[in-house]
């Protein structure tokens, strides 16, 4: 809408001066001048424009001329299409001073006599706002080159006009108090090179120049309407009636066509619906068949899957059973092996115990033999008691040796009455080797077992292995060699070390 209003401003600026009729145009004197400097101040830029004729800066456009209709009271702004100033302007704007100082009333000869109210601004420009609903604001000013410029409300230039005749100076307006109008100077009919504008344009600035234009082709004569006869008026009425009837018939035909189209559309739509329903049914049937087939396949697959799963479960169960059987068999085998090993160990222990017992028996027999022998020696000493002191001493020393041997055998017998070390791997702890030794003596013994390992000998001592009891010592990474030392539990001898 703003753009449109900008365009409207252009239109209003031009239309502002359109005459409603040319009848009222009465060429008046353009030489009448206001009579005082007050008038100059009141009329603002229009005091400078009086007597000037300007041409649009564009290639086409209007020529505008300002002249007094009533000096100091009524100013005419006459617009001529093209560059030719005739005695009948195309449009005219009539300016009068407003009730308030610095205001103007502009009445257009166009738009049914539309009026604008102009207000003189501080910068010398004049802002116009239309009366009534259509404001159509625009602004005019004279720039520093003497160009008469029209702009819209936003300051955008609509048109520029440069002088093509010698302007009347404001001074002349002020200094010519002649109340009687003088004949207006004849306007130049052909485009000419513009003369320099009046102040305040700088004197050294080049004067605005309007290019010399080729004369526009003459406008065709204005067409005027002719008076119509009664028959022609009747013909128009009949034509309108006919046209109306025709348009109604066309509308009816169009309506019928639309109805027919609608009916066809409905039929086609119904047919489409039926076709759609048929296809839907077919699709549904196909879908149902497909679904049934799919369900059947799914059931078969499910059955197969269940069978497979059952087979797999059975297979797994069999595998588990087999594994369990194997494990049971392995356990049984291990148990048998352990039982056999235990039996063998027991037998070995029993054998060793028997050997120990036999050794003890032999020792006891030897001791008895020695006792008997000592008794024999005692008897012999008693027999040769007095005579052979040295011999007795020797015999006594020999008896002491026998006694010492008996003591020694007591200490050393502990090693005789214990079984040899039985070395075997620990069943429950991998890499662990245990040496089992049984006490075959009749009394408790202290026992020391040493196992050679990768890091050296590892020894353990038990000071109270009961008779017929077994004790073991274990170590990791045993390399094989075993050392065993035993002594009676009551003995003060220190257990030996490897």
């Amino acid at each position, binding site marked *: 809408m703003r753009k449109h209003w900008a365009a409207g401003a*252009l239109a209003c600026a031009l239309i502002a001066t359109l005459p409603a009729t040319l009848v009222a145009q009465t060429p008046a004197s353009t030489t009448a001048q206001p009579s005082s400097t007050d008038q100059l101040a009141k009329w603002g830029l229009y005091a400078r424009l009086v007597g000037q004729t300007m041409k649009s800066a564009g290639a086409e456009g209007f020529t505008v001329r300002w002249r007094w209709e009533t000096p100091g009271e009524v100013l005419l702004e006459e617009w001529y299409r093209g560059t030719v100033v005739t005695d009948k302007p195309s449009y005219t704007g009539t300016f009068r001073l407003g009730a308030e100082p610095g205001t103007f009333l502009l009445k257009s000869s*166009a*738009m049914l006599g539309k009026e604008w109210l102009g207000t003189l601004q501080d910068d010398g420009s004049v802002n116009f706002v239309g009366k009534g609903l259509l404001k159509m604001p625009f602004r005019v000013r004279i720039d520093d080159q003497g160009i008469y410029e029209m702009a819209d409300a936003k300051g955008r230039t609509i048109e520029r006009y440069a002088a093509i005749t010698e302007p009347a100076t404001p001074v002349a307006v002020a200094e010519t108090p002649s109340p009687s109008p003088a004949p207006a100077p004849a306007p130049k009919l052909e485009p000419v090179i513009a003369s320099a504008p009046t102040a305040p344009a700088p004197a050294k600035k080049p004067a605005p120049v309007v290019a010399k234009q080729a004369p526009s082709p003459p406008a065709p004569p204005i*067409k005027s*309407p002719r*008076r*119509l006869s009664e028959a022609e*008026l009747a013909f128009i009425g009949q034509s309108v009636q006919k046209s109306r009837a025709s348009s109604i018939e066309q509308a009816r035909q169009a309506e019928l066509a639309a109805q027919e189209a609608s009916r066809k559309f409905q039929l086609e739509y119904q047919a489409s619906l039926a076709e759609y329903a048929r296809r839907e049914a077919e699709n549904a049937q196909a879908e149902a068949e497909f679904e049934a087939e799919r369900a059947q396949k799914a059931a078969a697959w499910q059955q197969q899957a269940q069978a497979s799963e059952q087979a797999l479960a059975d297979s797994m169960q069999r595998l588990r059973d087999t594994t369990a059987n194997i494990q049971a068999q392995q356990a049984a085998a291990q148990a048998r092996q352990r039982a056999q090993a235990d039996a063998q160990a027991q037998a070995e222990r029993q054998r060793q115990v028997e050997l120990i017992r036999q050794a003890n028996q032999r020792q006891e027999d030897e001791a008895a033999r020695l006792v008997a022998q000592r008794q024999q020696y005692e008897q012999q000493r008693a027999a040769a008691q007095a005579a052979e002191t040295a011999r007795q001493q020797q015999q006594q020393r020999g008896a002491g040796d026998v006694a010492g041997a008996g003591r020694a055998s007591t200490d050393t017998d502990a090693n005789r009455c214990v079984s040899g070390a039985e070395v075997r791997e620990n069943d429950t702890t991998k890499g662990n080797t245990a040496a089992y030794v049984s006490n075959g003596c009749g009394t408790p013994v202290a026992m020391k077992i040493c196992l050679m390992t990768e890091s050296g000998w590892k020894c353990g001592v038990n000071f109270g292995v009961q008779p017929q009891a077994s004790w073991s010592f274990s170590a990791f990474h045993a390399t094989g060699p075993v050392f065993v030392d035993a002594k009676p539990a009551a003995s003060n001898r220190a257990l030996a070390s490897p």
Partner: protein
Amino acid sequence: MRNKWIGMRWLMFAVLAWNAPAFAAKAAPTAAGAQQYLAAMAQQVTTKVFFVDGSGRVNYVTGRYTGQVRTIKGRAFGKQKESVTTLPEQVVEKKVSDIHASVLEAIDAYGRPTACATRITEVAAPPYDETKSDAGNDTRAFSFTLTYKDEQWKYEPLTKFTTPAQVIDWSNVRVVRVSPAAVTVVSNGQAFAQVELAYFANDPDAADQIEYAMKFLALSCNANAAKGF
């Protein structure tokens, strides 16, 4: 008020014209009255104007597409970074769909008042420049990117159709009753190959009066008219 009175007077005449030719003759309708009636009706009923150029394009305007993208990138810690990218300009075009005449004047192409021409002095249309704004937000764990895109499609103003104003020359027009309630006058334009001015009346009777006024002007202004309209 004056226009209204003129319109009413013309309406009365138009109604009576073909119902009572004798009275019509006495009433002496004028082309100037028809002009004023059509100008007044343009304010009362819906009108549309179609400016057809030499290529057959209707109400054709060209314009320029511009736009820019403003991007703001930032992290959870640290300063934000803003950049502006100007989108490449493009030439765009469109058809302004709804141009209606708001001021009609009995002035010919040379600016001279005459009842045999109607100048489409002022037209109006809903705003047809376009703008579009988009915003995007890409937020992640430790960074974010905000994007603002502004686009504009700015076309020639409506002054394209009124500078110079197009004029209907009633000596060479075609009046078409496009529907019971709509009448269109087709004329050669000046800057445009063809100008069509359509009135969409509220009822067929009003359309009759408009058509009567148009045909009255056409017949009045064309001495050689074959009355074929």
